[in-house]
């Protein structure tokens, strides 16, 4: 167990290191001119040179990278090119926003997806199964910006005009401003993200549940004369959750790297918003910072999923 953890953390670190190198290499492989972009069209060569000097872009590549790694190991990801804010600080501001969105949404979609999937699987081909399938397909196909904007139109615009100013147009209020404020700023982004992801979980749970309910040990459970409820949840869902857990780990990790479209629609300055900004500005330190956050999320989520596997299925041994 401990051995497993140590090995996974070490391989995770290796992955992060390789990713940082790749991002670095990619940044310098594509044509870019940060200094020219910052200084504008009429800048003199001297200005450009000065900017490059200040940003350290005039130094050899390996030296720049070495410096980055050295600082990163000491918890310093450098400063962003435009505002000279520490990248760690920018991320520390953006991450809670993204986490608020993702954690809230993931709870909703997990509950919604799994329960509708079970409902579907228990009575296959019934009216409710078909209804759930159609709804799932619908939300699966709707682009998140369409759903987000529609929600804004109905719940912000129409409701506010009608005299019920309940939902804000967007933006973020931290929890320190009060639970209420935070909650009402979050609810529309949550629904947007949750509805679109829930569809995947409905289909996944339904398929997995149907398979499990056909297993011999479900017949055994019924033969024992325990309640049908218990057969479905204690015996069926328990086994059917394994693929759901995998998918959940991947999805949450990916979204922590930025729920880009949802954050944009609801003007939430989260990790996704920062990454778009960083790429547009060719802001290398910020790009690296955002990518590392996303990678750490994926690595950690994978370790957690593997640990959960061992809990869910005693046949899995961590080694």
């Amino acid at each position, binding site marked *: 167990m401990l051995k497993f953890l140590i090995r996974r953390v070490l391989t995770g670190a290796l992955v992060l290191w390789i990713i940082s190198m790749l991002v670095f290499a990619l940044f310098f492989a594509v044509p870019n001119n940060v200094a020219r972009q910052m200084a504008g069209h009429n800048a003199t060569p001297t200005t450009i040179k000065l900017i490059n000097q200040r940003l350290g872009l005039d130094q050899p590549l390996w030296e720049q990278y070495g410096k980055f790694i050295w600082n990163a190991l000491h918890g310093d990801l450098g400063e962003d090119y435009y505002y000279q804010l520490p990248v760690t600080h920018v991320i520390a501001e953006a991450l809670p926003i993204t986490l608020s969105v993702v954690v809230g949404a993931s709870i909703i979609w997990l509950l919604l997806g799994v329960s509708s999937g079970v409902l579907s699987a228990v009575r296959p081909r019934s009216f409710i199964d078909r209804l759930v399938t159609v709804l799932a397909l619908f939300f699966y196909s709707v682009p998140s910006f369409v759903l987000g904007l529609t929600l804004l139109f109905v719940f912000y615009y129409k409701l506010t005009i009608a005299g019920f100013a309940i939902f804000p147009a967007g933006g973020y209020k931290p929890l320190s401003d009060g639970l209420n404020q935070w909650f009402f700023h979050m609810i529309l982004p949550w629904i947007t993200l949750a509805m679109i992801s829930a569809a995947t979980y409905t289909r996944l749970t339904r398929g997995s549940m149907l398979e499990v309910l056909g297993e011999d040990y479900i017949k055994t*459970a*019924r033969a024992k004369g*325990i309640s049908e409820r218990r057969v479905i949840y204690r015996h069926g869902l328990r086994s059917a959750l394994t693929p759901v857990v995998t998918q959940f780990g991947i999805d949450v990790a990916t979204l922590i790297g930025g729920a880009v479209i949802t954050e944009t629609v609801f003007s939430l300055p989260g990790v996704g918003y920062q990454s778009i900004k960083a790429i547009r500005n060719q802001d290398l330190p910020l790009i690296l910072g955002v990518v590392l956050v996303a990678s750490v999320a994926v690595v950690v989520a994978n370790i957690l999923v593997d640990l959960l596997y061992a809990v869910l299925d005693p046949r899995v041994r961590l080694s």
Partner: protein
Amino acid sequence: MALLEVNDLHVRFNTDDGVVHAVRGVSFEVEQGKTLGIVGESGSGKSVATQTITGLTRGARIEGTAMFEGIDLLAATPEELRSVRGVKIGMIFQDPLTSLHPAYKVGWQIEEMIRAHQDEGRKKARARAVELLSLVGIPNAKTRVDDYPHQFSGGMRQRVMIAMAMALNPALLIADEPTTALDVTVQAQVLDVMRKVQEEFGTAIVLITHDLGVIAEMADDVIVMYAGRVMEKAPRRDLFYANHHPYTEGLLASLPQRNSSGGRLLPIKGSPPSMINPPQGCPFAPRCPYVFNRCVEETPALVPVFRREDHLSACFLSGHQAEREQGKEQMRVALLEEAQLESARLESAKLEGIA
């Protein structure tokens, strides 16, 4: 009165290809403390019939009655059935490798069964689980209760299944091909356990199998099923030594003989009929060596033969096997000739290949 009395059971399934009439008018009784063997090949309806009685068939249209301790199981509500399953009727299935839940300890699975029906504390249920496991011959039962199914071998898992099925001391144990997935040596051990349990608790057993060897070892009475019908019903001895139905005869003839060394197995020619829109007449007629016109025109009823009340057969033929010996001999000769022709053909093909 018999413990379980099944009368004219029909089970139909709606499928995309049509209505599958899997069980067609099956009747049988199980006496207290006795073993009823049900033999038949795959798809003969033997499992469907017994699972229907306990309410485990889903999405089927069911007709008939199944009287068990004064209630008709086929007319019972799901709640009533639930209080019978596990408590009064225990069940074990074919594949012990997949019949236990892989995520729960075996002890927990037995405890769950006990606690679902009896108001007992964990401790008591657990003690009972240990007791049951040692009863079915699992060594170190005290520590083994906390093991997961994958830590047991196939034979041991089937013992766990038996222990679980017997947990509440049911009056009837339905064993659906309990030894089919096991090695021959392990088979014998599992059958021993079942017999021991039967002696200990006085349980009646319905033993479903396609293995006549298991029947010979365990059953008191036997019914032979084919295409959803009972073909013959007889006490064990009569079934093996004085059977009536040509299908039973074919089943016995297809067994490997110990004394005919190097001989070929004698299969029953042809394959079972489709269960969708079966043709008129005896379902075995297309494969029967003694078939005559009447067999194709009407379906024979299950009637007493040899002037015995306990021996029934669904066949128009009269009289004893001996009278049919001639026909059977002809059949055997035909099969042998065919086999010789086949090997001659292979031989000449080989020769050609060399040339």
